[in-house]
């Protein structure tokens, strides 16, 4: 059942690479956004607007997001044409393109658990650490990170798992270039389109098992640390 073709392996590699990069980038981007949403100052109106923007991918059809990214990053779009005028390539139908799409698409899944964890943490421990002489980075590493590690684990896992399941954005933006933008979900679709149900089933079942295993581990960790709930 698990004799996979080279195309399958390539798709697995692209998918894992995409999910891993997306997760790493998201942890870097989502942490300050979540902190600001949970504890930051500034007008409530601006905060609400940012919160809504972050949550947009939850309700928007992925094709809408993919469409606008295609327009934006493609050769005629503002970003794509600017890149080309600098002698670089536009980003439509590239791995970088779908990486940008994934980061935006999975943003709420990273921001929300972190925001929840930071809100639970409150400002106090950070203020205390400050009074004890810890600077910004020191406070993040020695207080925020250990006290909200459950939130980070959940955010990373959800971002990773959600990227695995991404379909619409990549379909619009990436095409299906093997080794570049052909991820598992696209390949399964292609197999099914080609009536190759055996291949589609192999990959689908593998993905199903993997997704279950990931969620099982998250919940187990969550229970042990008794931290953020999904």
């Amino acid at each position: 059942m698990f004799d996979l073709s080279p195309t399958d392996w390539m798709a697995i590699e692209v998918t894992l690479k995409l999910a891993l990069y997306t997760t790493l980038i998201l942890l870097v981007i989502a942490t300050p956004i979540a902190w600001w949403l949970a504890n930051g100052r500034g007008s409530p109106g601006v905060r609400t607007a940012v919160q809504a923007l972050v949550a947009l991918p939850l309700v928007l059809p992925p094709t809408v997001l993919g469409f606008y990214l295609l327009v934006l990053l493609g050769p005629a779009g503002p970003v794509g044409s600017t890149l080309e005028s600098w002698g670089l390539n536009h980003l439509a139908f590239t791995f970088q393109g779908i990486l940008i799409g994934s980061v935006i698409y999975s943003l709420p899944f990273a921001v929300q658990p972190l925001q929840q964890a930071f809100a639970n943490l409150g400002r106090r421990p950070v203020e205390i650490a400050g009074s004890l002489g810890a600077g910004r980075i020191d406070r993040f590493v020695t207080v925020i990170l250990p006290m909200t590690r459950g939130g980070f684990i959940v955010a990373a896992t959800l971002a990773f798992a959600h990227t695995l399941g991404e379909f619409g954005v990549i379909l619009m933006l990436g095409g299906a270039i093997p080794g570049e933008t052909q991820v598992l979900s696209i390949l399964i679709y292609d197999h099914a389109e080609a009536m190759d149900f055996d291949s589609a089933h192999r990959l689908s079942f593998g993905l199903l098992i993997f997704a279950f295993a990931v969620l099982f581990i998250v919940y187990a960790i969550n229970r042990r640390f008794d931290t953020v709930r999904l």
Partner: protein
Amino acid sequence: MTRPDPDTLRIKARLERPGFALDVDTAFPLEGVTALFGRSGCGKTTLLRIIAGLEHPPGGEVHFRDTAWQSGKTFIPLHRRRVGLVFQESTLLPHLSVRGNLLYGYKRTPEPLRRLHLDEVARLLGIDDLLERRADQLSGGQRQRVALGRALLTSPDLLLLDEPLNALDTQTKREIMPFLARLSEETGIPSLLVTHAPDEVERLATRVAFMHDGQLERLEPLREALARADSPLFRDEGAVSVLQGELGPADEHGLHPFGPPEARYRVPSTPSATNSAGRPARLRIDARDVSIALSPPQDVSILNIIPVTIESLDEAPGHHGPARVLAVCRQDDGQTLMAELTHLSTKRLRLKPGTRAHALVKSVAFLD
């Protein structure tokens, strides 16, 4: 502007929030314990947060001795101000042990600035036995003592205490008060104590800053704050006197002499009174427990009969029923003793300012 006193903390700040405005321009002497007293919502915590650098009101000025903490574009963040913070709720870092918590700030304090060390602080606060415990295994009182110790171990230039006893029950409060009282005396670190509890002020403060509606109304020594009938300290629970003096060793009746011969009290022994013998101590006397006699009564069970001169007679505060009179009396050692009387007695004894009399003190509480 007058030349700034070198040993003060000067603050000038305006801050507006919906339904609240703070406007303060004052200088606190950096010696002993300064209580910021007022009802909740009067701005005392906000003032503390400005001093700590947790609020940054535009145009504000905060000068600590000759260092500008906030002035124009200068803004020194909290972690460089060398200020110890203790809040009302537990703020121990739960992922660290008690020792880890205590040493968190110590390790971040440059070695030449470390004046207080783990052993002495742990002993001072009675937490030597708790060092290996986890933060969540402590009782409320223990947690506050550890929080206090953690702040002390940074050898701060200033301690900011935001209602540190508020979340504790009466018993635990009584257990921590002595540590707080000894603190400024033994470490020499000046502190600002935010509180709305008159008993904490009476017990701990050197001077009081009264705050009301975002304004600092008055900054005066505790003695003066307790010597006027309209003191905000008396607003809710009526007038009290707090006498400062030295407690002597117990006599054969188990009574400790307190104060100089011309205003000598005898105080029943308690465990803490025994420990404090020979040290400065405070007695708290409820004005309702003091009666006035024109001549010293002979056959009366009351032990403490103190000669006084009546200074003023005012409306007694803290009453909702029929009005009573508050007699502010001066003891012969210069300290103030308050007596609460009825209008009838005042009239019958023909009391007026300058009258010599004897104060009959029914009960005294030793502030430990």
